[in-house]
């Protein structure tokens, strides 16, 4: 078997953090490449520390490796120091398990969790010696596929990716594998083109080369399928029952420190809180809870196997999980016999109930607690449908400081639709009031307000909104800086507004953005999520060269009649639902959570014939706290209970 390990190892003393490149994780497989088996290289196009914990990639890794006719290995973007050595020594991109060159795999699959990694995708292909354009590949080259949340607008990478998998990957990966495996086993007797044609017939698979984009007077107006049998729209895949997918069973335990370095258990997928800025909440509907007993088993087995002393219960809003109190209590009390275990809840709801749970899990280390009110005024929070009343936030903060926490971190967005300076300054006001509450309990009380520039995302009600300019975002951040400067106990942190602009153009760009991504990459613009490597002028220069601008692609409000670059991707949501919700937003009308109120017909359930699957017919303990919902209208709604499955 081919391996570049000896050549790589002789260079490892020259790079930072060499443990990134050695593999050897607990849970990793020892790959056996048999004749007739189809090999996958799963690539996370960012550093090992960021990519390794990615649960989506680990789930696919296990599903593929359970198949007798598949073998999957992993790769991550080499840091710039190793990349320079690889290029000078002629070392190709490699897998971390067997250090096999990327070009020797049958399939290269990229995880697209965020947009700013796009230039790294091209860099990884190029380092692998694989032509970056799909049109430049022939039967000798791997099939290049991609999936993940950012794939819901695939167009900026349409020139480079052979096929995208839209939606949940658990089932789609098998269907994709079978088509490619047939082709590989047949000795690639059919042409690459005909194999890709066949992929078009697989639900959830989008093959961009089978579509012709149309433009009129410099505007994208739609895509036309080039051949018969190529669907006009591609429907995302949805896994109906999380209980059938208790993955990852063998979560990877790295040898070196990574982000989220703990046991991660997904307790539910999807969210119907309905926050209008949140792409994840929109495209992962409906809510599908994992049965509480399965959660418990996964925690116990996982702790015993990995030796971790921390478990994260992951989802988009973990306090909403029906079994949350029991899951937390049982874990902290420790049935696995592995010593002290702490639980982390990465997405806290803003209410006192949630703080009560946090108090259970952080008996010892009460240093900081994080909440995301997202906007500074009630008006603004109705617009974004994050229905947290001020009394909810103050109640949560009071509860936190009174129970021994000394630092509270608050996440906010700025540059939201119709945001006024009063709304912006509401952020400072909230933070100051929170410090005052904290001072009643400890003189050390401090509040960090972290402010990010809002980037409108596809498949959300805000997809028509023209993003704030860099100057406008900087002006708003400046207002907050001035106001908080003399506020004792309030610290302000902010995200680089220029990075928000680049994220904006990659998020909603059409197919013409591919040339921009390529040029930024050619100019050396990799690792754009890393501030030390990010430069906005590379993006604006490249756009100008291709007749595009931030004004038209990012800052402009879209019209209802306009074709959107992702209209051919069906993420489950009716476009008219999104438009109505956008109009409701502008009218400052909130929309309650549909788990416990009547259906709004957003399309997510009806389209795939499944419903929200929750463990409890009533809203979680704590009731409407943090949601602003009127629960009197919710009692009659039938829900599917995870415990009562047939």
């Amino acid at each position, binding site marked *: 078997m081919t391996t570049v390990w000896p050549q790589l190892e002789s260079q*490892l003393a020259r790079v930072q953090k060499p443990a990134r490149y050695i*593999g*050897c994780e607990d849970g990793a497989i020892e790959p056996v490449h048999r004749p007739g088996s189809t090999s996958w290289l799963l690539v996370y196009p960012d550093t090992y520390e960021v990519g390794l914990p990615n649960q989506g990639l680990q789930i696919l890794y296990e599903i593929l490796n359970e198949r007798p006719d598949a073998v999957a290995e992993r790769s991550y973007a080499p840091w710039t120091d190793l990349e320079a050595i690889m290029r000078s020594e002629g070392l190709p991109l490699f897998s971390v398990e067997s250090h096999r060159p990327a070009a020797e795999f049958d399939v290269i699959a990229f995880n697209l969790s965020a947009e700013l990694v796009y230039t790294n995708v091209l860099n990884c292909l190029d380092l692998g010696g694989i032509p970056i354009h799909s049109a430049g590949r022939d039967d000798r080259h791997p099939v290049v596929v991609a999936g993940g949340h950012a794939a819901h607008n695939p167009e900026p990478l349409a020139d480079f990716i052979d096929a995208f998998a839209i939606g949940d990957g658990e089932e789609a990966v098998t269907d994709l594998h079978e088509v490619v495996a047939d082709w590989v086993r047949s000795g690639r007797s059919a042409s690459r083109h005909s194999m890709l044609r066949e992929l078009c017939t697989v639900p959830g698979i989008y093959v961009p080369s089978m579509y012709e984009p149309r433009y009129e007077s410099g505007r994208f107006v739609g895509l036309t399928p080039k051949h018969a049998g190529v669907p006009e729209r591609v429907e995302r895949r949805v896994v109906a029952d999380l209980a059938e997918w208790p993955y990852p069973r063998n979560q990877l335990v790295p040898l070196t420190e990574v982000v989220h370095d703990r046991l991660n258990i997904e307790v539910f997928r999807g969210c119907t809180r309905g926050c209008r800025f949140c792409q994840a909440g929109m495209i992962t509907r409906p809510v599908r809870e994992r049965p509480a007993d399965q959660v418990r088993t996964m925690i116990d087995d996982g702790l015993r196997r990995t030796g971790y*002393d921390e478990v994260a219960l992951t989802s988009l809003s973990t306090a909403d999980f029906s079994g949350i109190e029991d899951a937390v209590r049982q874990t902290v009390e420790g049935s696995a016999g592995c010593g002290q275990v702490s639980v982390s809840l990465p997405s806290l709801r803003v209410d006192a109930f949630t703080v009560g749970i946090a108090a259970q899990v952080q008996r010892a280390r009460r240093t900081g607690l994080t909440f995301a009110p997202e906007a500074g005024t009630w008006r603004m929070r109705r617009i974004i449908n994050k229905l947290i009343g001020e009394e909810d936030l103050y109640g949560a903060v009071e509860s936190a400081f009174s129970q021994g926490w000394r630092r509270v971190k608050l996440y906010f967005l700025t540059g939201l639709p119709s945001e006024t300076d009063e709304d912006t300054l509401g952020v400072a006001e909230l933070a100051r009031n929170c410090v005052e509450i904290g001072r009643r309990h400890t003189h050390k009380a401090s509040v960090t307000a972290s402010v990010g520039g809002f980037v409108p995302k596809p498949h959300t009600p805000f997809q028509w909104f023209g993003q704030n300019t860099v100057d406008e975002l900087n002006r708003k951040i400046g207002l907050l800086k001035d106001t908080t400067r003399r506020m004792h106990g309030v610290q302000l942190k902010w995200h680089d507004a220029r990075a928000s602009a680049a994220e904006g153009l990659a998020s909603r760009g059409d197919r013409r953005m591919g040339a921009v991504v390529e040029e930024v990459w050619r100019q050396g613009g990799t690792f754009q999520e890393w501030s030390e490597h990010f430069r906005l002028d590379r993006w604006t220069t490249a756009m100008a060269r291709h007749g595009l601008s931030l004004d038209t692609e990012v800052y402009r409000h879209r019209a209802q009649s306009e074709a959107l670059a992702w209209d051919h991707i069906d993420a489950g949501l009716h476009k008219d639902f999104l438009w109505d919700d956008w109009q409701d937003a502008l009218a400052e009308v909130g929309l309650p959570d549909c788990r416990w109120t009547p259906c709004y017909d957003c399309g997510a359930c009806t389209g795939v014939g499944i419903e929200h699957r929750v463990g409890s017919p009533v809203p979680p303990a704590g009731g409407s706290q943090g949601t602003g919902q009127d629960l009197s209208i919710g009692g009659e709604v039938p829900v599917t209970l995870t415990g009562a499955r047939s």
Partner: protein
Amino acid sequence: MRIRLRFTKLGKVRWTSHRDAARLWERALRRAQVPLAYTEGFSPRPKVSFGLALPTGAESDAEYLDVNVRPERDVDLSTLPDRLTAGLPSGMACTAAVGLDPPVSSLQQVVTSCSWVLGARVPAAEAERRVSELLAADSVPFSRVRKGKETTDDLRPAVRELAVVGNHYTEGFVALRAELATQPRAVKPIELLAALWPSSGDDVAGWPLRRTHQWIGPSDAGVEPITLDAPEESYAPARAS
């Protein structure tokens, strides 16, 4: 009660840092259900202390750590090494465990020197010549950064033993054996190699290293923090890949 453990670090896992190894060990101890004693206070940590740091990239036959366990729970020391090895990555193996009762001084305090096998990318004759020159010298000044300041120290007193032991450590490398003092001030193997071959520059950073012993007192007395029953004498490291 305190338990002292001896372990190896060989093959790919040598690219993990000292800090990585500490984290790996904490997980392995929990997997083996060792009843760890924890520190008091706001953020309780298991009471585990590691000996002298091994440079990232170096292999070792003789690493150590001390672990405090809760006194009320018995730990079966005879099965402990195997149970721990099962939870460690390939290349790391626990080779011995002893109880320290009453507790003794920390590893960093008791270890006085370490033996190493070092690879040098030079011709064998050149290696012999430089080794003789260094041993014959009264002092070997070298500069290093200490507390942010570049200072000049004498390397020679720390070199207790130095010899060419083979012309093939691994492909392209001559093998040297060295014993370097760790007290009063430790000299690192890479500092020795750089002093022997200043013209090799940064290249020495990639030369192979393997710690074979840590000594308490003179090495000819043969006292180690834990002495293995059948210590293997070899300079050619097994290269897991």
